[in-house]
């Protein structure tokens, strides 16, 4: 079945996971967080990942973003097999292909919003002038044009997450991954952020978002439900109950 899927992958496929397992070996106990995941995401899709806490959503997300390595299985991103890449090639994949938005924002606290957004562009070797334009552009895009010089500590949670989204968009990645991006936010800023994701989806950006917000999930193109390390449901959002 695994070979079938990869052979049948349509040309627009960005993400292709086959038989992915992830075992956390904590010394005493081994936790099998993912027990064989097959998943493919095409260009322009908006995928909502749902499931109970501890089911393995974050683990999956980290593998998708090349932040962690699977114990077993094949993962291809943009046609490139991730296993066997050197650390530097992997860094380049993260830099160019993936934009990541974390629940805990993960901004560097001591530098300005602008400098945070600029960082992936620095690592990507973008020339200074182009870099500044781009950082300003994406910050404007998330509505923070007037807050560029603020440090994260001087911003609200919603604003911080917007900086993080701008940072994820900076390198114009193939896919944006978000792990419970509203998990640390109050309802109002949460729906602001969700609004931004819906906008991005409408503009044709490929998105995978973990969420507990069923209203949002329903507005996504596709819902993937995970339980106990396995995909138990993968349906177009319209079909979701």
């Amino acid at each position: 079945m695994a070979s079938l899927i990869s052979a049948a992958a349509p040309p627009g496929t960005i993400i292709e996971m086959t038989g992915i397992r992830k075992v956390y070996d904590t010394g005493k106990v081994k936790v099998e967080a993912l027990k064989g995941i097959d998943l493919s995401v095409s260009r322009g899709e908006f995928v909502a990942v749902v499931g109970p806490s501890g089911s393995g959503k974050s683990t999956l997300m980290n593998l998708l973003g090349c932040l962690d390595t699977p114990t077993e299985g094949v993962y291809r991103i943009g046609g490139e097999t991730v296993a066997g890449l050197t650390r530097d090639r992997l860094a380049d994949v993260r830099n160019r292909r993936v934009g990541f938005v974390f629940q805990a924002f993960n901004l560097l606290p001591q530098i300005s919003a602008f400098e945070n957004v600029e960082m992936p562009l620095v690592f990507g070797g973008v020339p200074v002038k182009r870099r500044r334009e781009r950082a300003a552009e994406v910050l404007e895009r998330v509505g923070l044009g007037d807050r560029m010089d603020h440090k994260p500590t001087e911003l609200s949670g919603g604003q911080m997450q917007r900086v993080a989204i701008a940072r994820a968009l900076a390198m114009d990645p193939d896919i944006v991954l978000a792990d419970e991006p509203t998990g640390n936010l109050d309802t109002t800023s949460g729906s602001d952020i969700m609004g931004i994701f819906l906008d991005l989806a409408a503009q044709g950006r490929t998105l995978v978002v973990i969420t507990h917000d069923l209203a949002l999930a329903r507005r996504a193109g596709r819902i993937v439900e995970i339980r106990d390390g396995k995909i138990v449901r993968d349906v177009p959002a319209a079909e979701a109950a």
Partner: protein
Amino acid sequence: MLKDAIRQLARDLRSQKLRTFLTVFGIVWGTVAVTLLLAFGTGLKRQMIKTTAGLGDRICIAWPGLTSVPWQGLGKGRRIRITEEDIQVVRVRVEGLKAISSEYSDSFKLNYGTKTYPVDTAGVGPEFEQMRNLVPEAGGRFINPIDVEQQRRVLFLGNKVAETVFGKGTDPIGKSVLLAGSPFTVVGVLKKKQQDSSYNSRDADQTFIPGSTFRALTGKKYVSNFVFQPATALESKGVSARVLESLGNRLKFDPKDKEALSVWDTTEQFKFFEVFMLAFTLFLGIMGCLTLVVGGIGVSNIMNVVVEERTKEIGIKMALGARQGSILGQFLLETLILTTIGGAIGFAITFALCAVFPSFGLEEYVGNPDVSPAVASITVAVLGLIGLVAGYFPAREASRLDPVVAMKM
């Protein structure tokens, strides 16, 4: 790319003020501690030599006399006469010689005002200041090379002579006196010193003029005696033998003839001192190394904390696509710059302290500290290296983690 690195560095340093401060502080502290310790050691050693060496600093004194054995067909009882030229030859030819100077001596009349005093006068070279430990009182100086070259009529007074002639209240410097009927200007007065042994008179009771002036004044051609200084006290026997051999060949006497040229080796008393000083230096060196180790542990601890604290930051940067090289390169550059800054500040503090110290007036007891740039540079380098190693390896560990793991720290 380097510009980016520097920009990012400036950003990181700015963002981590406390860490930056602590790291720099550790290096400053270590540098100051070690360099100051060794600077005081050097000063103390110098001062001990000064106070111990009343007669002179590890010198040998040689007097020409009559030959007591026949040599190369020349009979005994022949007078050995040594000229300035002979001294010059010894200076150039004999190995292991730190300094040498001829000495001409006589007793003259010194007139100041209406009074006349008999004084023992020595005509000597500038080397005497250091060799015979003739340190001038503040405001004065000893005879210098230009005095000798131009046969200047300048006079350096023993402190007792100065007191007898000028009394307590008057500063003799710049005053004119008549010595053997010629006008001389006083340029310096001997700083009071402890002197347990002497030849001629005690230095306090003597006056010193340039050797060339002495010869012009008296028409003397031959030295009364000469003084030389081996590079170290432990070499005095060898150097003496070579001086005797050189002069023996030149003036045709048996180098073993004790009466043709008798040599008083005053370095004996210094041999113990020299061994003691070696031990003392060794002791300071060990102390310095220990201080360095302690300082290094400080710096490396700070660096460790830094890396731990920064693992999350490293994780985030990796998640955004930073390559390992860029993360480590930045770490190295950072340590390098912090070390340079810390070292420079440490240097500055030590130099400043050493510059201020003489004004405390403790010179007589502990001497004045003197920084050795080599010691200071090594100190900074070692601290920097420790910081680098301590910072580098944990940073490399961190950059080898998967980004998720690093970010969870």
